[in-house]
């Protein structure tokens, strides 16, 4: 039980106006959504220059629901409905951001895996842009099942799957918090806090494996806790637990490992707690080493009545063991690539942090993107204040919980984990650490929610004793709103991430547009799939997802392709990379020369030796292949050019180096006039080619699996 003064949470009479308030919330949310749709449309047309309308719509979605959840007397179903309204409306906000198709970086990584499954009917096909994705195909399997049984497009099926995962997450969180505290209000507010976390709006709503695995993991913890409390661990329950655990294991690596670690920690927590207490007593001279040894030998540490802990169940060891065994089994037998994928990320973050502590690394610029665009001042302040409030309430809540006598071990586990929050804040100061900190936020928010809500409710109770009723409620809503706003700013970042709009260079969703998609589709239609091709970070995604190509990447093959683009001349190093890495084609986006990359990199992490760019890539560097003998410029759309490099690899003679175009055109260098015969022009209009238009790129799978361009060679 979480410690909140009983008088503050005594069940009051049912709130008569609950249903009316639900209608108010629904209408406010509806108005908020329409306003948001209008704002995004205006942003696409370049008519919005600030974020006022965006924030107005967000507040309309959030504040009325928060007000309802802060009431003491609201019934359980009312709270659940409010939570579902907020969470699903925020999901709709993400859909409205990209209503035509998947545009976020991680989404396109998984679309490639999904397209491969749909095309081949097999799992574990190679994904060159995210090699571990096919090894954890849970999300793609579910989506493929929907696509294949209903005929829906990949996009619609993906949106439905993630939408259902969101419903699962909210219901499971509410049930979990309610189970461990027995308080509806606590459960509602704690779930709302999780909704306020920085990744709920975009990252957790993406078509990405974590978006499905995390809700399943929460259900598993809820169900396990429920069955332990009800002392019902009969075979049917065990079967359900095993099914859920398998689902998580097959869906996301990190979620399954964290889940196993969590259950292990949960199982061992009472014993660890006793052991630490004994050690402290020994240190204070109240207990001798012999007494501790006797306690361990007599197994009193494993007593089922461990003082302040309720519901200690040693069967948790079995679950901890199984939850460790399944992911380990999968890792060793199927997904061994995961180690190579995850270890550099964590090692890099730790070395960054060590360098930062030693004063050797530059501190990451907060509230600013790599092109220098800053977040407006009030948003910066709101974010900082929300972090400070979270820290204060977290400490208060943890202290209160610690002073309680009979508590669920699970509550203690969550409170203890929540204390990692300050450490992750520190990690945000380094580039790689920020990534890890950001990604772990979705997990950590669940633990922080317990401490935070305990602290928040205690504050409300303290205020209630001194001020009118509504003051405490208003303060609670104000705090949650501030944290919601701070979460969006911290998670979504600068304005260009939050808004759709014209193309920007290396700017994730803002770089996904018609020209890039059409070029990727052209490669599939005219070159065939699985061509080894080098491209920048964004076009690489499109080539993989829409073109079915095999982009050469650092993450998959350890090849740094950035010199192919940034070197101003065709050097021996460039030639060596092309030949050694068997690169057949090179896609050059000429727009890279127009601006600095918004995310800091054009190609891969660590390019340019990790040094930030101070000016865009010169256009001459991008088009240097025009003058290289043997390199054909086979495709030109004005903004995207594709070079065929196979002539370089096939050349018998050493390369002549840089050539002048004009010289190549002169009759002297070209020899005699060739005899070439042109066939009669045949206009081959294909109505189906309309599918190429980005205006209809909602049907990615249709193009990739059954589209008119699904031919390896042009017809004679």
């Amino acid at each position, binding site marked *: 039980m979480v410690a909140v003064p009983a008088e503050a949470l005594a069940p009051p009479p049912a709130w008569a106006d609950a249903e009316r308030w639900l209608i108010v919330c629904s209408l406010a949310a509806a108005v908020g959504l329409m306003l948001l749709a209008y704002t995004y449309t205006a942003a696409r047309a370049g008519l919005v220059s600030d974020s006022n309308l965006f924030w107005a719509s967000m507040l309309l979605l959030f504040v009325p629901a928060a007000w309802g959840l802060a009431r003491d007397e609201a019934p359980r*179903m009312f709270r659940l409905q409010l939570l579902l309204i907020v969470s699903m409306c925020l999901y709709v906000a993400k859909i409205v951001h990209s209503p035509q198709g998947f545009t976020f970086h991680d989404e396109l990584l998984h679309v490639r895996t999904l397209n491969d499954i749909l095309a081949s009917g097999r799992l574990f096909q190679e994904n060159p842009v995210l090699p571990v994705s096919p090894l954890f195909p849970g999300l793609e399997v*579910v989506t493929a099942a929907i696509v294949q049984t209903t005929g829906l497009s990949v996009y619609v099926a993906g949106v439905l799957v993630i939408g*259902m995962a969101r419903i699962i997450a909210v*219901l499971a969180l509410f049930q979990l918090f309610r189970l461990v505290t027995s308080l509806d209000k606590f459960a509602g507010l704690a779930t709302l806090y999780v909704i306020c976390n920085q990744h709920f709006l975009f990252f957790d709503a993406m078509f990405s494996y974590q978006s499905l695995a995390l809700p399943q993991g929460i259900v598993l913890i809820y169900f396990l806790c429920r069955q332990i409390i009800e002392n019902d661990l009969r075979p049917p329950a065990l079967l359900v637990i095993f099914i859920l655990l398998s689902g998580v294991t097959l869906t996301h690596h990190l979620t399954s490992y964290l889940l196993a670690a969590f259950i292990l920690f949960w199982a061992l927590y009472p014993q660890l707690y006793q052991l630490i207490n004994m050690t402290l007593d020994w240190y204070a001279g109240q207990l001798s080493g012999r007494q501790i040894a006797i306690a361990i030998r007599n197994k009193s540490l494993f007593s089922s009545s461990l003082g302040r802990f309720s519901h200690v169940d040693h069967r948790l060891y079995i679950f901890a063991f199984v939850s460790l065994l399944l992911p380990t089994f999968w890792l060793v037998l199927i997904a061994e690539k995961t180690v190579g994928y995850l270890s550099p990320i964590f090692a890099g973050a730790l070395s960054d942090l060590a360098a930062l502590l030693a004063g050797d690394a530059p501190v990451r610029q907060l509230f600013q993107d790599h092109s220098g665009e800053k977040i407006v001042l009030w948003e910066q302040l709101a974010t900082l204040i929300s972090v400070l409030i979270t820290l204060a309430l977290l400490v208060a809540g943890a202290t209160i919980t610690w002073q309680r006598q009979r508590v669920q071990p699970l509550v203690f586990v969550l409170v203890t984990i929540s204390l990692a929050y300050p450490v992750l804040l520190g990690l945000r100061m380094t580039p790689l650490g920020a990534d890890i900190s950001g990604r772990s936020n979705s997990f950590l928010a669940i633990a922080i929610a317990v401490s935070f809500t305990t602290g928040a409710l205690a504050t409300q109770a303290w205020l209630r004793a001194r001020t009118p009723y509504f003051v405490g409620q208003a303060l609670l809503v104000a705090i949650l709103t501030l944290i919601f706003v701070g979460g969006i700013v911290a998670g979504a970042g600068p304005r260009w991430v939050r808004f759709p709009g014209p193309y920007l260079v290396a700017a994730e969703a803002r770089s996904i*547009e018609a020209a890039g998609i059409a070029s990727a589709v052209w490669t599939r239609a005219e070159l065939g799939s699985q061509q080894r091709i080098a491209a920048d970070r964004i076009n690489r995604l499109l080539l993989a997802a829409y073109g079915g190509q095999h982009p050469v990447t650092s993450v998959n093959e350890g090849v740094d392709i950035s010199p192919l683009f940034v070197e101003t001349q065709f050097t021996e190093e460039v030639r060596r990379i092309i030949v050694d890495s068997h690169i057949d084609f090179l896609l050059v986006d000429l727009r890279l020369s127009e601006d600095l990359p918004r995310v800091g990199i054009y190609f891969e992490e660590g390019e340019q030796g990790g040094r930030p760019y101070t000016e865009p890539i010169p256009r001459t560097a991008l088009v240097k292949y025009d003058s290289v003998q043997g390199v054909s410029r086979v495709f*030109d759309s004005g903004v995207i050019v594709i070079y065929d490099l196979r002539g370089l690899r096939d050349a018998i003679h050493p390369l002549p180096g840089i050539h002048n175009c004009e010289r190549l055109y002169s009759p002297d260098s070209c020899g005699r006039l060739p005899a070439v015969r042109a066939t009669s022009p045949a206009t081959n209009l294909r109505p189906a080619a309309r599918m190429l238009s980005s*205006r209809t790129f909602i049907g990615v799978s249709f193009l990739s699996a059954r589209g008119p361009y699904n031919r390896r060679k042009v017809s004679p």
Partner: protein
Amino acid sequence: MSAFFPHVALTTDGKFLLSLASSFSLVILSGLLLHWSGLGLGRQQWVIALAGLSIGLLGIAAINQKRRGTIGAADTQRRQERYEYLGAAISLTILVLIAGGAIGYAHINAVRLGANPPPQLWILEEKHAGARTAIIGVYNTQDSPLVGRLQVSVNGNILYSSSPLQVAPQGVWRQRVDLSPDLPERSLIEATLTSLEEPKHGYRRATLWVQ
């Protein structure tokens, strides 16, 4: 859930939650089994697997419920919840309709405001039974006809210059160029497309080295 827990009175939202989460996991496991069994993940396989799973679980649920009966308290609770759901259902339905409207509005406007991709010019070599052919293609991605001039040169010598070339909206124009066997080694074929309406904006250039 009734198949697994006929003796437990789960709340409706609890049942819904566990059913949905278990269904996801069961579909994932089914997909894995279809893959490992060699049947593959196709439409028919999915229909058979999921229908079999659903019917099997429904059968177990029915047998369990018949054997154990229904718990009286659950009925009362279910009636109460049904009442609670009614009011909510109306307001949530309105919200869902408006949310759908918002998505539709955003989609229609994204289509309206979205730019077509720029026109494409390409040239590719095709080797076919000893014969060599270059294929030149123009894809007009725009909603208006593309009127331009295509010029093909070989090693700098103009081979072909089209009369004004017209490609219909969203249409593809192709031309095969048979390459003579006595073409010198390392020849450069160059195709340039110039829009007659907007000569600068419509300019495209593609090249092909024949080695």
